[in-house]
């Protein structure tokens, strides 16, 4: 499968000042009391992407940050493949003791329940969300040289072009966003699939492609370089970090496609351990530098209780069914 949300916001990690470490440890002190015995050995983070990918960097970043807080080694295990299913299965079947934590996009876990004919596990039952990390939209982009300043102008021009229009996508979320847009507006553009968003840049700039649905990391970087222009974001509400970009919904194309990352553990992990993990991640996610950094990539830092996170997983699984059908993606 195409991996949902290939580009993931990376997180900042300037040299951790001694003060920050001390502060972190002080803040953690009260939490430690709840679970004296956990962690008593190394913690393993499961990453569903190969070493070096954007997502891998995010996972390793949290591993590095958790080390001084948990006072244990945090080892990242890459178990890439099958669109994340291999890692999901491995994490779900691990011992539910809190030493195996799956750091991955909850939205991708949910999507895979529909993108595959036989998902390896029933994610809502097999996994427990311990903490959420961020939320991020996909973005509708056009060439910065093009005259379209909003979605309505683009739609009008694309209707004129009819089936001669083309657009790029590089992930299932982009495909789905493109299908919803066409369904709502009646545009008939032809989808051109790319492996990664940057692969599509040359053809965007040469005018071969009329518009694109891409991840925020690529979109914001190109907007900053003044090569591409962001017309709208796919989330239901504007993001706190980038309030200047309107939602597709505001632009009369209703949709709510939001990607979100989470730390997940196998179901059956003791409640105090889940709470401990939640406190760690909540603390890390809300640190100033992390929040600021997530923002600069078009995602908002987003922490929740384990219960709210789990509810989000269940809701995402429900939402993705119709999306996948709409985008006419054949489940594998």
């Amino acid at each position, binding site marked *: 499968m195409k991996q949902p949300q290939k580009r993931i916001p990376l997180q900042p990690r300037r040299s951790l000042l001694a003060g920050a470490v001390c502060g972190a440890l002080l803040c953690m002190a009260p939490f430690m009391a709840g679970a004296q015995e956990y962690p008593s*050995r*190394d913690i*393993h983070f499961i990453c569903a992407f190969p070493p070096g990918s954007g997502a891998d960097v995010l996972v390793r970043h949290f591993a590095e940050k958790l080390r001084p807080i948990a006072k244990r080694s945090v*080892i*990242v*295990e890459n178990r890439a493949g099958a669109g994340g299913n291999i890692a999901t299965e491995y994490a779900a079947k691990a011992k539910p003791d809190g*030493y195996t934590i799956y750091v991955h996009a909850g939205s991708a876990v949910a999507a895979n329940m529909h993108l595959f004919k036989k998902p390896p596990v029933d994610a809502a039952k097999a996994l427990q969300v311990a903490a959420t990390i961020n939320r991020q939209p996909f973005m509708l982009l056009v060439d910065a040289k093009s005259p379209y300043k909003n979605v309505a102008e683009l739609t009008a021009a694309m209707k004129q072009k009819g089936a001669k229009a083309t657009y790029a996508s590089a992930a299932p979320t982009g495909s789905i966003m493109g299908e919803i847009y066409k369904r709502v507006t009646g545009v008939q553009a032809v989808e051109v699939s790319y492996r990664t968003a940057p692969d599509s840049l040359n053809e965007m700039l040469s005018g071969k492609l009329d518009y694109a649905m891409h991840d925020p990391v690529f979109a914001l970087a190109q907007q900053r370089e003044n090569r591409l222009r962001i017309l709208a974001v796919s989330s239901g509400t504007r993001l706190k970090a980038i309030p200047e970009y309107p939602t597709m919904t505001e632009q009369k194309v209703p949709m709510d496609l939001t990607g979100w990352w989470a730390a997940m553990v196998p179901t059956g992990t003791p409640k105090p351990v889940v709470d401990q993990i939640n406190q760690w991640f909540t603390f890390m996610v809300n640190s100033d530098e992390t929040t600021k950094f997530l923002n600069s990539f078009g995602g908002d830092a987003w922490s929740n209780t384990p219960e709210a996170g789990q509810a989000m997983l269940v809701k995402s699984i429900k939402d993705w069914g119709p999306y996948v059908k709409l985008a006419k993606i054949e489940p594998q």
Partner: protein
Amino acid sequence: MARVRVKGPQDLGAAIVFIVIGIAGLVFGQDLAFGSSAKMGPGYFPTILSGLILALGTGLLIYSFIVDGPPIETVQVRPIALIVISILVFGYLLELLGLVVTAFLMTLVAAHARRKVNLRENIYLGIGLSVFSVLIFVRGLSQPLPVWWWAQ
């Protein structure tokens, strides 16, 4: 009529490899939608490739009966069998036994790929390599490999 005789055994072998792969590509790819050139389906490129491989194989098959070529070198079963087994030993025992024991076992199996085996020397080699690999890969490069059969 002259008797049909294989003249280039190596070419014949390669021809068989090509034909098998070409047919396999076509058979296992038949469920993939072919599409059209304007809208290539997932089966378009594989079908064309498999067809070309099959055609080349067929050509080579005919060629092998016409043009003389060198004979195939004799196959020795022992080296390839034991090396392949040693790879599989590593792959399937690592998660059960940990790196220390598996590296040792693998070294012993691999050593038997040669005819003359000095068991004592290979036990020392196995111990040495297993210690070395733990030091380099687990301690030095912090690879997430299990060292023993229990979790640390």
